[in-house]
């Protein structure tokens, strides 16, 4: 049997590593990814482990690299992902890396702080520039109050020669001081109010907005500011005004009174600004260059650091062998890969040039981890099974069968050629574009789930197309390929005109061809009124039949487990009565269904006519309730029985099936009890012959006796639970499979509603606007189809078929008490580390 049918054989091995080669060997094993190490120091604190310093150094390096990455991302430089997988560097190289990162970090920090100082300077100069410009405005308004008519010529002529404080209008105010500055625009109203209150209205504030936003040096965001100028008289007010300005964090600038001075200052500011601009751009260039050169290697560095850290974490799990100056490790290795592990170890020891590592296989009663070797296709189905419970070590794995039964049971519930095609195309697209889509790492949970299950979705779509063909359902319409077996020829015009409803008679050869539609359901049913009756009986029967076949398959799988684990007792005391119970009752039910399909029909003998066909459900109930034999009444052509001897056969089947229950319940405990007794006798006999102290034999026997009684009660309880679960389960699980019918009916009805109430309106709409109406209606119909019928119904059917597998199928044979094999592999570690980075 291939490896997927049963989990791999695992071996617990002890590894002796020399101190020099330990690092390289673990690195090689990490690349191989087939070894699961056990933590030999579980009670040791993380801070007391041997290699805690190295781990700390790795954390430091990671922090520096993350800082670099943030800066690179801030500047929008693309990080090159060559897809290369660098090897973990040796400890000597680690020091080189540390030095390099330290240097880069310091350089970047220095550049950043320089840039900040320069930007602050730049901001001050810009604000000063705006102040010098805006005070012109104040001056103009002081010269020409708004309510006086403006004389254009005078306006342009005099501004050069007039002071900020002209004598003409303000000559009676002496010793007027002023303060000019810049403040955030949002703070102006509060600033004004504060000034008014504090100075009792004795100061005069003018303000003008600066149109362009200025860059705040620390945060880097753009803020809007305004220029203000405050006029006051006296030192007292000056102090107050200055204090208020400081409180509101307004920056004040010295503004000269004379316009000539102002102009000179403005020119000086301009030259300084230009110089600063050049210096700033050069600083930014330098920073950009540093970051670009770092961006080229940053991915490789990150991977190296992650690998080093994981190697040291693993080394922390080892025991120190003081005598031989080496490290001891315990690990689980699949037996099939022991050779590969030996080769990896040899490579590691060759690299570091020391004595070879020793691999010892150990025997242990402990349960090994469960390892299923999967590829990208089978991985998804294995995940489905493992979500319920990881298989017990070396028991039968349901996953290879699930590859087909899961999409198939889904398809029975989803059967529609149109919706199946949508699903299959979606799955096919994801499979076709696997590589580029998986390279894109997103933290969008829903997309990751869909993409992880791309093969499942693809198969579900394909099978749904097949069942859609058989159900003859394409977006709730049927397709007539072969020609219907039903015909309306037998009715003449008057019959048609007089009767609103006409039912075709299967007995009449003119109305029914006597041969069914070759592939799938006849298209005539889709346009009939009583199609629900027909579909119900059909779908219920197929649900029950597939359910019983699925469960029977599960029961039969348990034989392989019993044979592998060498438990013949289970075969005779559990498997055989289970099989007989299921077969004699439920496979008989299936046979009744087949018999009725073949035997009863219209157009034949009256005893097998449709009105004589007995209900299988009633027959089955009568069988189980042990109803007495029903005599056929006089003159009644119909018999309640389908074939001769049915009553007798049913009685026999029922009795044998009922007998299986005590068989399941008592046989195994009885045999175990007998085996215990025999062992006890053997032990007593040995005890008498051997040299044992007097009370020893009795004590041993007494101990065995209590232990055995304890075991027996446990065995009885366990067996009782198992029997009740199986017997009750066989009925309830069989009925549970009727969900296949229920969901299929719901899907068909929803599909019909969407067509009849949405799309039909568009199809019927005529006239000039009909095309536009159809266009809009189609959009609505299509989005509802995808959202409700494909997504919602698909999810619902997925869940139901998952439940059918987990509960109804696996309860017949599956243990599921194992734990998964999690090897030390760089691939998984790097993936996890990258995903946490993406989430950030």
């Amino acid at each position, binding site marked *: *049997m291939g490896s997927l049918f049963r989990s791999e054989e695992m071996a617990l091995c002890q590894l002796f590593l020399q101190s020099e080669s330990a690092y390289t060997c673990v690195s090689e094993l990490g690349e191989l990814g087939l070894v699961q190490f056990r933590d030999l120091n579980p009670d040791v604190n993380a801070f007391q482990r041997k290699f805690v310093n190295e781990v700390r150094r790795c954390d430091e390096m990671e922090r520096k690299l993350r800082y670099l990455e943030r800066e690179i991302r801030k500047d929008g430089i693309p990080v090159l992902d060559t897809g290369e997988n660098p090897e973990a560097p040796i400890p000597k190289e680690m020091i080189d890396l540390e030095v390099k990162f330290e240097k880069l970090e310091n350089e970047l920090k220095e550049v950043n702080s320089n840039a900040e100082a320069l930007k602050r300077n730049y901001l001050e100069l810009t604000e000063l520039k705006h102040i010098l410009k805006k005070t012109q405005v104040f001056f103009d308004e002081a010269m020409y109050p708004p309510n006086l008519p403006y004389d254009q010529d005078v306006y342009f002529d005099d501004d050069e020669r007039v002071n900020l404080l002209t004598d003409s209008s303000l000559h009676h105010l002496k010793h007027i001081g002023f303060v000019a500055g810049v403040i955030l625009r949002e703070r102006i109203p509060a600033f004004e109010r504060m000034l008014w209150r504090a100075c009792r209205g004795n100061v005069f504030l003018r303000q003008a907005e600066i149109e362009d936003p200025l860059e705040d040096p620390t945060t880097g965001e753009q803020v809007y500011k305004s220029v203000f100028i405050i006029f006051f008289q006296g030192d007292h007010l000056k102090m107050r005004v200055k204090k208020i300005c400081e409180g509101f964090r307004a920056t004040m600038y010295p503004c000269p009174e004379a316009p000539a001075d102002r102009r000179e200052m403005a020119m000086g500011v301009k030259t300084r600004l230009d110089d600063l601009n050049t210096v700033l751009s050069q600083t930014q260039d330098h920073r950009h260059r540093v970051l670009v050169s770092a961006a080229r290697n940053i991915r490789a560095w990150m991977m190296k650091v992650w690998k080093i850290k994981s190697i040291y974490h693993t080394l922390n799990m080892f025991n120190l062998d003081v005598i031989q100056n080496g490290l001891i490790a315990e690990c689980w290795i699949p037996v099939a890969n022991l050779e590969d592990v030996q080769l990896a170890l040899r490579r590691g020891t060759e690299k570091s040039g020391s004595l070879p590592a020793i691999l010892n296989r150990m025997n242990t009663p402990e349960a090994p981890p469960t390892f299923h070797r999967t590829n990208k296709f089978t991985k998804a189905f294995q995940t489905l099974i493992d979500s319920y419970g990881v298989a017990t070590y070396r028991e039968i794995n349901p996953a290879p069968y699930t590859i087909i039964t899961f999409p198939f049971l889904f398809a029975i519930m989803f059967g529609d050629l149109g919706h199946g095609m949508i699903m299959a195309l979606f799955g096919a697209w994801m499979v076709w574009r696997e590589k580029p889509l998986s390279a894109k790492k997103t933290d969008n949970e829903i997309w990751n789930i869909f993409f992880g299950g791309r093969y499942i979705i693809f198969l579900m779509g394909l099978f749904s197309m097949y069942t859609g063909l058989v159900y003859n359902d394409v977006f709730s319409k049927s397709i007539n390929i072969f020609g219907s077996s039903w015909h309306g020829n037998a009715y003449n015009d008057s019959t048609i005109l007089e009767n*609103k409803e006409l039912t075709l008679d299967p007995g009449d050869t003119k109305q029914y061809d006597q041969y069914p539609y070759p592939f799938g359901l006849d*298209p005539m049913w889709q346009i009939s009124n*009583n199609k629900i009756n027909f579909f119900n009986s059909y779908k219920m029967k197929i649900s029950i039949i597939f359910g019983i076949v699925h469960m029977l398959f599960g029961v039969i799988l348990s034989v392989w487990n019993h044979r592998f684990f060498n438990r013949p007792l289970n075969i005779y005391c559990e498997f055989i009565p289970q099989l007989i119970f299921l077969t004699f009752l439920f496979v008989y039910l299936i046979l009744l269904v087949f018999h009725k399909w073949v035997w009863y029909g219209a157009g034949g003998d009256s005893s097998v006519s449709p009105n004589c066909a007995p209900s299988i459900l009633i027959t089955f109930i009568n069988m189980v309730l042990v109803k007495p034999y029903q005599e056929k009444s006089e003159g009644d052509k119909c018999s309640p029985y389908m074939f001769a001897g049915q009553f007798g056969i049913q009685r026999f089947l029922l009795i044998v099936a009922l007998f299986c229950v005590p068989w399941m319940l008592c046989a195994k405990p009885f045999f175990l009890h007998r085996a215990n007794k025999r062992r006890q006798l053997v032990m007593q006999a040995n005890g008498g012959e051997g040299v044992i102290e007097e009370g020893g034999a009795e004590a041993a026997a007494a101990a065995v006796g209590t232990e055995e009684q304890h075991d027996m009660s446990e065995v009885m309880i366990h067996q009782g639970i198992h029997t009740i679960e199986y017997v009750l389960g066989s009925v309830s699980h069989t009925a549970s499979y009727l969900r296949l019918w229920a969901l299929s009916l719901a899907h068909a009805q929803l599909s019909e509603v969407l067509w009849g109430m949405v799309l039909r309106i568009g199809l019927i709409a005529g006239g000039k606007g009909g095309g536009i109406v159809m266009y809009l209606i189609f959009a609505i119909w299509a989005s509802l189809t995808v959202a409700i019928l494909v997504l919602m119904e698909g999810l619902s059917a997925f869940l139901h078929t998952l439940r059918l597998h987990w509960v109804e199928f696996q309860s017949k044979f599956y243990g599921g008490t194992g734990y998964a094999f999690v090897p030390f592999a760089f691939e998984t570690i790097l993936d996890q580390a990258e995903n946490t980075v993406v989430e950030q």
Partner: protein
Amino acid sequence: MGADAIPVGVVTGFWAVVGIVFPFIVPKGPNRGVTQVVLALTASTCWLFWLLCYMHQMNPLFGPQLHNTTVLAIQYLWDGSLTLDNLTTENPSSVSSTSATDDSFSTTETAF
């Protein structure tokens, strides 16, 4: 039996080839066992599904109930036993009486 030999033979033959013949020609490799199981399961489940549908329709116990307008449509579209001149020339009075069945016409679904 209401079974026809050709459909049964063709479908059974197809799935028999998929489920019984193909597993023997699966190339050797680590996935041989799984591929064989996949082929066999696909063939058996799909064939059984088709068979159940076929057998259910072999000897139907009742027939489809149709609107009279649907019967007319079927006679015209599928059976070809009705031509349009039949309606107009034979029963001129029927034109008025079909209006009585107009309300049913709007709910007829057409299959194509």
